């Protein structure tokens, strides 16, 4: 069979697979196709599902990249580890790309230079592409997340003078920093406070502070605490101005945090480049998952060009052996971990929280937005092609551990939303 014939076949197979997934098996799919005809079925599905994207992402061996010299933006935090390390450790090169990683000063700036096209792909907080695609807090530009960067890896840090604080209720009147409105940090901090009976809009002040400025603000008494990415929690301990009150994994074990994102347009216009970058990121993520590599990676990303932090601090974050600022040395191997799979259910959870706190005022179709932005199906194929093992389901139940244990069922987002006493809807 010719090369193009192979591609066409592969595309059809992908389409079938998606149809099967959507209609719940081969029988449901056949019934639907019989009822409306094959072309209509395919078109109807394409309107619901980013079929072109999945096809682009499913090619096993991508063709030569349309563009080799790429710029990828990042914020200097350990969440961006796979994106950053892929440069000094040669993962982009391995996939035929010449990538410059560019440090940005704040999340608003990283959003703007990405929308402008000054960067080709970018590090983002996982709620950002959802918000930007919906046009919430930004102009509306369709974005995709082909890979989550890290899970866990954040913490609530409080100023050293608050060492006596035990519960959320003790934090009434605090001024908190989070990196951005559309961040897991904001949603996890709000979740944590609300579970402790503290209304995050009325009883405390939460404001957006760029991560690199957090320690300085804590020291200047301008903040009482923050839920922030590392190394800025650990750096506060290192500077003796704060202590780690709680790791984010104790709020939601395995929560997503940062993401590797790009404009939908980039994926559509340069499918091969998109695929090659994704492969490089997946490769790097796989490498950093192995805990025996963490020290070597800390040394590679600590210099001025990347995080610009003492190696010691980055190492404490990545290895999970760290002083907490209260005199204890803790050993938490999964303090930060790396898992690229963008579960649709994660996106749906984020959307429920955006709704809960009034960032989204209208009704959204959770499933559709999640599937358009979080490319779980395509990621799974790309992972398989690289010999990695993606999970079977794109929708799973998530369990949040803080306060009353709540199980989030992605099929019942509205019930979940209604189960919260403190909410803005």
């Amino acid at each position: 069979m010719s090369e193009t014939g192979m591609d066409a076949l592969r595309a059809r197979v992908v389409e079938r697979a998606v149809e099967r997934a959507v209609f719940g098996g081969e029988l449901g799919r056949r019934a639907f196709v019989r009822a409306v005809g094959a072309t209509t079925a395919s078109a109807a599905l394409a309107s619901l599902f980013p079929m072109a994207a999945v096809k682009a992402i499913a090619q096993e061996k991508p063709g030569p990249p349309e563009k080799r010299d790429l710029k990828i933006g990042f914020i200097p935090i350990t969440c961006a580890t796979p994106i950053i390390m892929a440069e000094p450790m040669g993962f982009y090169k391995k996939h035929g790309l010449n990538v410059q990683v560019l440090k940005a000063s704040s999340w608003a700036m990283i959003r703007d230079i990405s929308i402008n096209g000054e960067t080709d792909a970018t590090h983002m907080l996982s709620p950002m592409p959802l918000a930007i695609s919906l046009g919430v807090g930004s102009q509306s530009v369709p974005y995709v997340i082909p890979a989550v960067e890290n899970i866990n890896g954040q913490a609530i840090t409080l100023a050293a003078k608050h060492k006596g604080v035990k519960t959320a209720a003790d934090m009434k009147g605090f001024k908190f920093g989070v990196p951005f409105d559309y961040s897991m940090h904001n949603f996890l901090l709000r979740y944590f406070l609300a579970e402790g009976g503290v209304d995050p809009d009325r009883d405390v002040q939460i404001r957006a502070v760029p991560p690199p400025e957090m320690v300085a603000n804590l020291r200047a008494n301008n903040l009482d605490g923050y839920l922030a990415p590392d190394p800025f929690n650990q750096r506060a301990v290192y500077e003796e101005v704060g202590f780690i009150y709680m790791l984010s994994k104790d709020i939601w074990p395995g929560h997503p945090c940062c993401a590797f994102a790009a404009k939908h347009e980039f994926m559509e216009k340069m499918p091969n480049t998109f695929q090659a970058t994704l492969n490089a990121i997946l490769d790097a993520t796989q490498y950093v998952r192995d805990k025996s590599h963490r020290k070597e990676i800390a040394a590679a990303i600590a210099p001025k060009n990347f995080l610009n932090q003492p190696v010691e601090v980055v190492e404490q974050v990545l290895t999970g052996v760290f002083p907490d600022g209260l005199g204890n040395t803790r050993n938490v191997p999964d303090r930060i971990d790396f898992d690229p799979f963008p579960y649709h259910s994660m996106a749906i959870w984020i959307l429920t929280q955006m709704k809960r706190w009034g960032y989204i005022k209208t009704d959204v179709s959770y499933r559709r937005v999640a599937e358009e932005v979080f490319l779980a199906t395509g990621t799974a194929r790309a992972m398989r092609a690289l010999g990695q093992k993606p999970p079977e389901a794109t929708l799973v139940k998530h369990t949040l551990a803080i306060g009353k244990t709540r199980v989030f069922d992605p099929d019942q987002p509205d019930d979940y939303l209604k189960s919260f006493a403190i909410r803005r809807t």
Partner: protein
Amino acid sequence: MTRERLRVVFLSALIGLAFVLAWQAFAGTKPAGKGIPGPLAVGATAWQMLADPFYDNGPNDKGIGLQLAASLGRLTLGYLSASAMAVMLGVTLGLSPLLYRAINPYVQVLKPVSPLAWMPLFLYTIKDSGQSAILVIFMSSLWPTLANTAFGVASIKRDYLNVASILQLSWSRRLVTVILPAAAPAIVAGLRISVGSAWVAIVAAEMLIGGTGIGYFVWNEWNNLALTSVIFAILAIGLIGVLLDAGLARLSRRLAYTE
């Protein structure tokens, strides 16, 4: 006169020395790495940076010389275009009291706006962070020159303009031989204020956009809480500011005239 000058230099050096000693004594009360770094630590950092000011380790790590050059490049572009526009506009307004009074309210509203407040608007419309920074410089150096030029041109002695019309000079010759020279001291005074405010704005603009420049350098070192580098950068920014101002001061001495 020379004796007087000697005394000024001596006193100035004494004040400087006293400040540095007090700073060192204050910094010495805390162990190294905590509190404010002393002048010795800053000096060591300065030595290290000045030893290799033009190294280039990729987009996020460049020598201090390259960072300053990037800032000066932006400054030149923004400042020169703003100055050209401000002088043209200023001459027009200065020659026409009617137009001046009509436009003045708008200038008064726009003048006190911090140039950085324009940044989000520029980013959104121009869609280029580098050009947005240059436009911020443009906005910061437009108003002082504009106001001073308009004032300088408006207060040219009527006699000069009358002579020019008796001689039936063309419009362009009148501009070049009468108006601009007569208003030159006021214009240069405006240019001098403008370059100061542009240099102040560039640091803040670069802290916002990131990338290159001395403002980004300060921000990047702050992110690592490397205060020695921050203090050294502050000194470098101050010195360059003095040089820029001195250049224009020299120009203004050459253009001064007595009536």
